[in-house]
C-alpha cells in the first residue's frame, strides 16, 4: 500500500477513529491489529512468518537474557544474546544477501580457474525487514547491556517489532525511546492530531509534487546516458539528491506525522542534511537513526573491544601517539561504513559507493585536518562567514552526490562509465536552448519543479530556527489556513498521481 495513495489515507483515517474510540488500556492492541492489517495490504501474506519467527525468538531470548542477568549468569545471558542475534541476522542475511554471496563465490571461483555457476535465489522478504531487524538487534543488545528492561509480553514485543508506521522505511527506533509511549493510553488531543496531519500533508507534498517530478528528469537522463552526456549527467546527479531527500524525508514526514496522531513520537531521521558542513555532520543529519544505530551497536562495541584496545597499544608503541589516536578509529569506521554500504544493498556498488566512499572522505578529513587548518590560516580564509559555510555545504553536497550516483545507477562499473560520460562532452548550451524542457517535463512542469525546490529551501531555512508547524501556529488564522489550503490544493492539482503517472515507487521501500 503506497503511503501516498487514497486507500492508505482511508486506512489511516479508519485506524485513527478506532484508536480513539478504544479504551486507553487497549489502544496498543489496536495498534497491533492495524499493523497486521497494514502488513496484509502491503506485502505477500506468507512473508509475515519471518516476522513472526523474529518476534518469537526475540521475546524468548530477551526474557531469558534478563533472567540470566539477574541471576548473575553472564555466560548464559551471552548465549541467549547470540541465539537472538544469529536467528534475526541470519534471516535477514539469507533473504537479502544470499545472492550477493553467491555472485561473489561464482566470481572468485571463476578467477581461481574453477568456475561455478550457483544459481541465485528468488526469495521474497517481509515488509520492513531491513528496518525491524536493526530495531530488534538493538533491543537485544540493550537488554544484554542492561540499558533497557526485557519485554516479556509476546504481543507487546510484536508491536515493537512490527509497528506499522515503521514498516515502510523506519525510522529505527530504540526500545527505550518508544516503550512508554507505545503501550500507554493516549488521550484525544486535537492540537496534536492537527500537528500530525499537517506534517503528513507536507510529507505528501514532498513526495508527490517535488520528488515525483524530479524523478521524471532524473530517469530520462540516467535512462539514456548515451544521448544525455556532459552537463545532463550532473544535472541528474544534483536533482537526484533532492529527489532522494524529498522522497525519503517525505516518507518520514508522513510516517512520523501519522504516529504523532496516535500520540507516539518516533525519532527523527533527517535534519536539513544539505546544510551540513562536513561529511561527518552530513551522516548525523541524513538517515539519522541508521547512523546512530551503527555508532552505538557497531562502532562503540568494536572500538571498545579487546582486539581494538590491544591494537591501539601496539600502534602506540610502534608508531607513536598520533597514529594510535587515528588508525584504530579509522579502522573501526571502516567496519561501520562497510556495513552501512551493505545495508543499502547486497552488491558492490552499494558497498563501495555508499560505504567505502564516505569512509574514505571522513577518514581523509580526519587525517588531513591539520593540513586544511594550515592552508586556511595561510590564505587568511574567514571561517565564520556565510560564504565559507556555503562553500562547506556545497562541498559536502557534491561529495555526497557522487556517492549517491552509485546508489542510483545500480552498478559499479556502470556508474564509472556514467561519470566518464559526464566529464567529456562540453555542452553548457543545454541550459539556454530549451533542451531542459525536453526531459520528460514540459515548460510549466519544469518551472513548477524549480519553484517547489525553492519552497523546500524556504521551509528548510525556517526549520533551522524552530518547528515550522509551531511557527505557523503562531500566525493568524487566515494566513495559516491559506498555507494549509495551499498545500492541500498543491497536492491535488500538482501532485503526480493518477493515471498517466507511474506510481513513483518509493526508493527505500524495497528494504
Amino acid at each position, binding site marked *: 500500500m503506497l503511503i501516498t495513495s487514497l486507500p492508505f489515507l482511508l486506512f489511516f483515517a479508519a485506524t485513527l477513529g478506532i484508536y480513539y474510540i478504544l479504551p486507553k488500556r487497549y489502544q496498543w492492541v489496536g495498534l497491533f491489529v492495524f499493523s497486521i492489517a497494514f502488513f496484509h495490504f502491503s506485502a505477500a501474506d506468507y512473508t509475515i512468518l519471518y516476522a513472526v519467527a523474529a518476534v518469537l525468538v526475540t521475546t524468548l531470548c530477551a526474557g531469558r537474557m534478563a533472567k540470566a542477568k539477574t541471576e548473575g549468569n553472564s555466560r548464559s545471558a551471552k548465549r541467549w544474546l547470540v541465539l537472538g542475534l544469529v536467528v534475526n541476522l541470519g534471516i535477514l542475511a539469507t533473504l537479502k544477501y544470499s545472492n550477493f554471496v553467491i555472485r561473489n563465490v561464482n566470481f572468485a571461483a571463476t578467477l581461481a580457474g574453477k568456475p561455478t555457476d550457483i544459481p541465485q535465489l528468488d526469495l521474497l522478504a517481509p515488509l520492513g525487514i531491513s528496518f525491524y531487524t536493526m530495531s530488534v538487534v538493538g533491543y537485544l*543488545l540493550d537488554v544484554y*547491556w*542492561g*540499558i533497557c528492561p526485557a519485554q516479556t509480553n509476546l504481543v507487546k514485543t510484536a508491536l515493537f517489532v512490527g509497528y506499522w508506521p515503521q514498516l515502510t522505511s523506519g525510522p529505527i527506533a530504540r526500545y527505550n525511546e518508544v516503550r512508554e509511549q507505545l503501550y500507554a493510553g493516549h488521550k484525544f488531543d486535537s492540537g496534536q492530531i492537527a500537528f500530525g496531519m499537517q506534517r503528513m500533508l507536507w510529507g505528501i507534498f514532498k513526495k508527490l509534487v517535488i520528488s515525483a517530478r524530479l524523478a521524471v528528469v532524473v530517469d530520462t537522463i540516467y535512462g539514456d546516458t548515451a544521448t544525455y552526456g556532459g552537463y545532463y549527467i550532473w544535472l541528474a546527479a544534483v536533482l537526484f539528491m533532492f529527489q532522494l531527500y524529498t522522497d525519503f524525508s517525505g516518507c518520514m514526514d508522513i510516517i512520523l506525522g501519522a504516529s504523532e496522531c496516535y500520540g507516539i513520537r518516533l525519532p527523527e531521521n533527517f535534519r536539513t542534511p544539505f546544510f551540513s558542513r562536513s561529511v*561527518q555532520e552530513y551522516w*548525523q543529519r541524513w538517515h539519522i537513526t541508521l547512523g546512530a544505530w551503527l*555508532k*552505538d551497536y557497531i*562502532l*562503540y*562495541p568494536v*572500538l*571498545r573491544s579487546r582486539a581494538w*584496545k590491544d591494537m*591501539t597499544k601496539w600502534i602506540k608503541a610502534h608508531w607513536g601517539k598520533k597514529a594510535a*589516536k587515528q588508525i584504530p*578509529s579509522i579502522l573501526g*569506521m571502516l567496519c561501520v561504513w562497510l556495513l552501512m554500504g551493505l545495508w543499502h544493498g547486497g552488491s558492490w556498488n552499494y558497498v563501495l559507493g555508499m560505504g567505502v566512499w564516505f569512509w574514505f572522505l571522513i577518514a581523509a578529513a*580526519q587525517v588531513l585536518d591539520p593540513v586544511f587548518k594550515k592552508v586556511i590560516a595561510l590564505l587568511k580564509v574567514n571561517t565564520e562567514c556565510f560564504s565559507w559555510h556555503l562553500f562547506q555545504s556545497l562541498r559536502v553536497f557534491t561529495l555526497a552526490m557522487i556517492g549517491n550516483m552509485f546508489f542510483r545507477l545500480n552498478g559499479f562499473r556502470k556508474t564509472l562509465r556514467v561519470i566518464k560520460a559526464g566529464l567529456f562532452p562540453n555542452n553548457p548550451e543545454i541550459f539556454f536552448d530549451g533542451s531542459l524542457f525536453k526531459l520528460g517535463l514540459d515548460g510549466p512542469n519544469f518551472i513548477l519543479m524549480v519553484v517547489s525546490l525553492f519552497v523546500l529551501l524556504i521551509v528548510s531555512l525556517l526549520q533551522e530556527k524552530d518547528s515550522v508547524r509551531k511557527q505557523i501556529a503562531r500566525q493568524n488564522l487566515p494566513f495559516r489556513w491559506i498555507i494549509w489550503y495551499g498545500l492541500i490544493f498543491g497536492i491535488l492539482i500538482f501532485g503526480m498521481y493518477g493515471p498517466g503517472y507511474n506510481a513513483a515507487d518509493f526508493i527505500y521501500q524495497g528494504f
Partner: protein
Amino acid sequence: MNRTEIYEKLTAVFQDVFDDDGIEINDSTTAADIEDWDSLTHIMLLSAVEDEFGIKFDMKAVQGLKDVGAMVNLIGELLA
C-alpha cells in the same frame, strides 16, 4: 578520591586526548563545548579515562553520559 582530585586527573586526560593544554572542564561541560569532541573522539576519551583511573565503563554508561558532571559522578562510584 574526592571530586577535586578526579577533576585534576580528568582535565589532564581531556587536554591530552584533544591535544589542547588550555581545556577547562566543569560539571556542565558537554560535547558541544569542546570543538573536537564528537562521537569518535568520545570513545577515545572514555578509553583514556578508563586507562587513567583503572575503571571500566559499561555500554550503558557509554551511551548515556550526558555531561562531564555525570562522568565525574560515575568515576566516583566506580572507584568506590
